[in-house]
Structure formats: structure tokens, C-alpha cells
């Protein structure tokens, strides 16, 4: 099996999920220049809601095709998440729009803690296993395997990105959104209701988050009330990598981050195996004998990559790959 190609496929799959979540961060940032700290929790709630619905439908025992059942889960998760996204905007952001920047950040953190613990109350402390109803057939391509779930995730996110791009560039609301992102006051003078646009942006971001949540759930087969935290962090890193506030950047950043993470986790063990280092392996001759390994950093450091990428981008190119300057305060 070709490990390199396999890691690329896995990376593209997780990367397309990151891209969808990163779009949520970047859209909100575009219109209000603030990070929506609770976005990761919205994704988590999406996964959990879909989980409940899928379990209920499976429990009914209707002869429905598995893809339809998952679709029902998605359709249930989207309105729930949209409602949460709207609530977030109304409770945590709108009343503090003219407050010092610290204030909305703190309320968003508070909301995210509340969402996490409400989820804990509803779904419990233990990880919930997603029912594996999608039959996981693998297709061989060039020495690697791609599963039907991976194909579904990648194609779904491509469709979503295309739809979002159309929405933002071709519809009235999309134009209003871009105008607000450009300049709220002037957009107001042109007759655009900023409140409506901002609320709408939160709602769309949350809807995308819901779909991403279901993707993560079906891909890893598990959902947990703390899953939103690290996923949100990674997606945010992806958004910064691409250039925050920039839609194409979020898509690119998500895919790149997925690739970096998959390849990194796949190869870091080999690179940091001290037995492969010329001088050091001599000193460790006992432990390296008979093909032994002394691996400094194994794949359990996978979660560190996103953070390393975030720091490196902030040091060397804070505006991201496709973004404009962000270093000054608005």
C-alpha cells in the first residue's frame, strides 16, 4: 500500500472538514472583525443532534437507505445549530458591539462553556458512538484506498463551498454581506441593515458548522461533548493560515492544514526516530539493536501540528496566504 498517497487522501478528508468549519470563523470575522469563540461548540452540537436523530431513525427500523438516514440527521442538525448561532449573536455579540474588544470575547467564552456543559447534561460524559450505517466500501486508487465515507465527505464539502461562493457573490444577501465586511457605516448608508446581515452571517456559519459536525461524527464514528474545542482550534488555525476574513483562504487553509496534519502525523515518528540519526544512534546502541526504535515524537502529537502552523503563520505571515494586512487594530 502506498502510504504517502493514503495520507494525502486522509488529509484531504479531514482538511475538507476543517475548511467548512474555517469558513464559519472567517465569515463571521469578515463582517464583525471578531473571532466567534463558540463556533467549535456549534459544530459539536451539530454532531450530537445528528447522532440523536440517526439513532432514533435507526431505532424505528424503517427500511430507509443509510445515506437518507444520515441526510435526515444533517437536516435536523442544521436548524438547531442555526438557532444557536442566532442566539450567540444576539446574546454574546450584538449587545457588546460598541464595547471594548475584550468584552465580546469574554461573553463568547462564557457561551462556549455554557454550550459545552448543556451538551454534557443532555448527552452525558461518555463519548457517543455513531452507528456505522453507511457501508464502508473501499476503492483502490494507485496503491491506496479511499472509502465511500471519505468520498461522501469530500464531495459534500466541495458542493458546500461552491454553493457558498455562489451565495456570497451572486445573491443580494451575499452582496450585502460583502458590503458590510468592507465598511459597516457606508453599507448602512446604502440601505443595508447591518444587524440583519450580521445575524444572517452567524446563522449561515452555524449551518455550515452543523454539516461539518455530522461529517466528523460519521468519519471518526464518535461524538463527544468536548470535541468542538480542539476542532475549533484547528479550524481557526486553518482560517488564519488562509488569511482570516477571506473565503477562498479558509478553503485553501483547511485543505492544507489537513494535509500537513496527516503527513506530519504519518511521518514524524520516522523523522524523530533517534535510531535513524547517525551520531545519536551510536549512543543509544542498546535500545537501537535489532531494529529497535527510539521515537521522540509519535503520532500522538498529531494535535500539535495545527498549533505549530498557527504560530508559524503568525510569526512569518500574519496576513495568511491570501489575506490582507491584519496587524493593526481596527
Amino acid at each position, binding site marked *: 500500500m502506498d502510504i504517502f498517497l493514503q495520507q494525502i487522501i486522509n488529509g484531504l478528508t479531514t482538511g475538507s472538514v476543517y475548511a467548512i468549519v474555517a469558513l464559519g470563523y472567517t465569515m463571521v470575522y469578515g463582517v464583525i472583525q471578531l473571532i466567534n469563540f463558540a463556533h467549535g461548540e456549534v459544530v459539536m452540537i451539530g454532531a450530537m443532534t445528528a447522532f440523536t436523530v440517526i439513532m432514533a431513525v435507526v431505532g424505528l427500523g424503517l427500511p430507509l437507505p443509510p445515506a437518507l438516514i444520515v441526510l435526515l440527521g444533517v437536516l435536523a442538525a442544521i436548524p438547531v445549530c442555526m438557532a444557536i448561532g442566532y442566539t450567540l449573536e444576539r446574546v454574546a455579540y450584538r449587545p457588546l458591539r460598541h*464595547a471594548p474588544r475584550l468584552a465580546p*470575547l469574554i461573553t463568547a467564552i462564557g457561551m462556549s462553556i455554557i454550550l459545552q*456543559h448543556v451538551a454534557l447534561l443532555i448527552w452525558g460524559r461518555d463519548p457517543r458512538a455513531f452507528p456505522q450505517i453507511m457501508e464502508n466500501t473501499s476503492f483502490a486508487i494507485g496503491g491506496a484506498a479511499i472509502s465511500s465515507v471519505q468520498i461522501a465527505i469530500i464531495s459534500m464539502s466541495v458542493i458546500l463551498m461552491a454553493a457558498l461562493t455562489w451565495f456570497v457573490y451572486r445573491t443580494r444577501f451575499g452582496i450585502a454581506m460583502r458590503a458590510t465586511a468592507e465598511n459597516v457605516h457606508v453599507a448602512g448608508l446604502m440601505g443595508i441593515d447591518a444587524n440583519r446581515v450580521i445575524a444572517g452571517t452567524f446563522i449561515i456559519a452555524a449551518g455550515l458548522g452543523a454539516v461539518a459536525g455530522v461529517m466528523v461524527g460519521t468519519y471518526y464514528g464518535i461524538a463527544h461533548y468536548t470535541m468542538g474545542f480542539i476542532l475549533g*482550534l484547528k479550524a481557526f488555525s486553518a482560517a488564519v493560515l488562509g488569511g482570516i476574513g477571506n473565503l477562498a483562504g479558509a478553503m485553501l487553509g483547511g485543505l492544507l492544514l489537513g494535509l500537513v496534519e496527516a503527513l506530519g502525523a504519518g511521518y514524524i515518528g520516522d523523522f524523530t526516530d533517534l535510531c535513524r540519526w547517525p551520531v545519536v544512534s551510536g549512543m543509544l546502541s542498546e535500545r537501537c539493536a535489532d531494529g529497535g526504535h527510539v*521515537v521522540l515524537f509519535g503520532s500522538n502529537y498529531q494535535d500539535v501540528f*495545527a498549533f505549530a502552523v*498557527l*504560530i508559524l503563520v*503568525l510569526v512569518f505571515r500574519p496576513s495568511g496566504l491570501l489575506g490582507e494586512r491584519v496587524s493593526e487594530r481596527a
Partner: protein
Amino acid sequence: MKPYVRFPRWFGLALIALALLLLPHLLTQVGTAWVRIANFAILFIFLSLGLNIVVGMAGLLDLGYVAFYAVGAYVWALLASPHFGLHMPFWAILPLGALLACIAGAVLGAPTLRLRGDYLAIVTLGFGEIVRIFMNNLSSPFNITNGPKGITRIDGMNVAGMNFSATDTFLGIPFSGPTKYYYVLLLLLLLVIVVNLRLQNSRIGRAWVAIREDELAAKAAGINTRNVKLLAFAMGASFGGIAGGMFAAMQGFVSPESFVLHESIMILAMVVLGGMGNVWGVIAGALLLSFVPELLRYTVEPAQKALFGKMLIEPEVLRMLLFGMALVLMMRFRPAGLWPESRHKREMSEMKEEAA
């Protein structure tokens, strides 16, 4: 009209000092556990005053403060336990822990502090998580942190041959281990309060407040904003390091479990609740929130059992829900805290008028 008796200012302070000195002995009568709870309350006051420098004075949102606390705790744990067979004295490791935490803070702050404030928040959030991943995984191939099992049998404090883990008797009064730690913590607390109070009206303190209120104007007034912010961040981190060292010494055991995001949020809630930037407000906030878990344990559990026959909401979950709501409600209705700093209050109300 003059009051009948006028007590001099030192009299009130002396009374407070006396009460604080007698407190552990009174608490011992109730139970040694209460001395320990008081110790942790002091530790949290210490931590929140450290965070107050960063969040309250300089207005930099640090969501991974517990990582610096962890650095201090692990420095103490590694250098004074049978894990490596090292048993260094406290006067060497406590400053070392502070120094390493300070360096970690500076290294983290340098790339992020020249950017917008929200980047710092998310980078510190990530840093807290990364430190935890390292603590959990640095057990192979070389066992440094002993992984999730943590480090046990850590040396307590030992000053001039006096062991802080055992009970001693002075002048016929027994001093238990926790009681002795209480006095050490009280001393450290006094130090951090003095530092905070002196900072508040110092040149640096005013520079921090200026940055918090309007960075651009501060820059125009000739403040080197990046360096001054970095100073606040590093100083806050080093206080976290000292607190971590004391934590390791008191507990005798550290593991990654003690340094989760929730702890950072709790410390943040203490600072926000009391009033960002105001030393006495922060102390009150920290005291209040330190005793909330104890209070919930003694009231919510029995109340739920009596009402519903079983536990519906664990006190731990309820506590986090309350903290989350406190953060949201405080920012909405009393953004300057329950006991706001006068200057901050003025600015916050001016801002409200402007917005209206």
C-alpha cells in the same frame, strides 16, 4: 459632626492581620480540611492577581493561564521528587519555575502581541492544550513527565530544617502541615498584593491601562506598546509559575489532569467577576468563586436528592454553567465588575453614553 471614636488606620489593618493569623487555628477546630480549602482559596487569589495584571490591567485576554501554572508545578515536581532522584531546595526551584514560566510567556507572547488581541486569546487557548499534550506524552521514549499517571511523592517545602509536611509544636501550639503552608501562602499573597498595588499607579501600570483603553492613542503618546504588553504577559506568567510550585509542594502530586482549560476559565471568571484591574475586587471575586464549589457540594447535592430523589446536575457541571453565565452576564450588565476600579468604571459608563 465628628464620629465618637476615631480609630487610626493602622488599627483596622492590625485587626485584619490578627484575624488572618488566627484563622488557620480556628479552622483546625472545625476540621483540617477547611485549612486546606483556605489554602487553595489563597492560591486562587494569587493566580487571579497574576492574571489580573494580564487581563485586568493590560487588557490582554489570556485563556491558557493554567499552562504557566503547570510549568511551575512540573518544575517543582521534577526537581524535588524521587522521579529523577533530585531534591533541590525551594529557594532554587521556586524562582526557577517563575523564570521558566516567564520565558514560556515571552516566547508565546512575542509573535502574537504585535497582532490583534483576539489572536492572543486563541493562541494562549491552544498553548494550554499543547502543554497538556506534552505533559501526557513526554513519558516515552525518555520518561520525563511520567505521562497521565503524574508525579508522586513530591517533596514538600523545607525551610531551615523545618519540614512543612509534618506537625510541629511552637510554644505549646500545634502547627499542622496545611497551617504552615497557610502562612507561607499568606506571605506570598502579601507580596503579590503589594506588587499589584504598586503597579496600579506606576508608570508601567498606567501604560497598561492606556493600552487597554486605546492602543493607538497609547502608541501615539510614546508608549512602546509591544514591549509593555510583553512585560505584562511575562509578569503574569511568572506569578502563575510561582503558584504552580506552591501547588506541587502542597499537594505532593501533580498530573496533567490538574491543568485543564476549566481551571483557566475559572481564574478568568474570578478576575472578571471581581472587577478587571481592581486588586480588591479581584481578591473578592477569587474568594467568592473558591468557595462556590464547596457551597454547591454541601447544598446542591442534598437539595437535589431531597427534591428529585437523585442527582440531576452534578455540582461540577452546575459550577461550570454558573461560571459561563457569570462571564456573559457580567460583561452585559456590569462590565467593570462587581467592585470596579474607579477609573475603569468611569470609562465603561462613558462608553455606554457614547453608544446610546
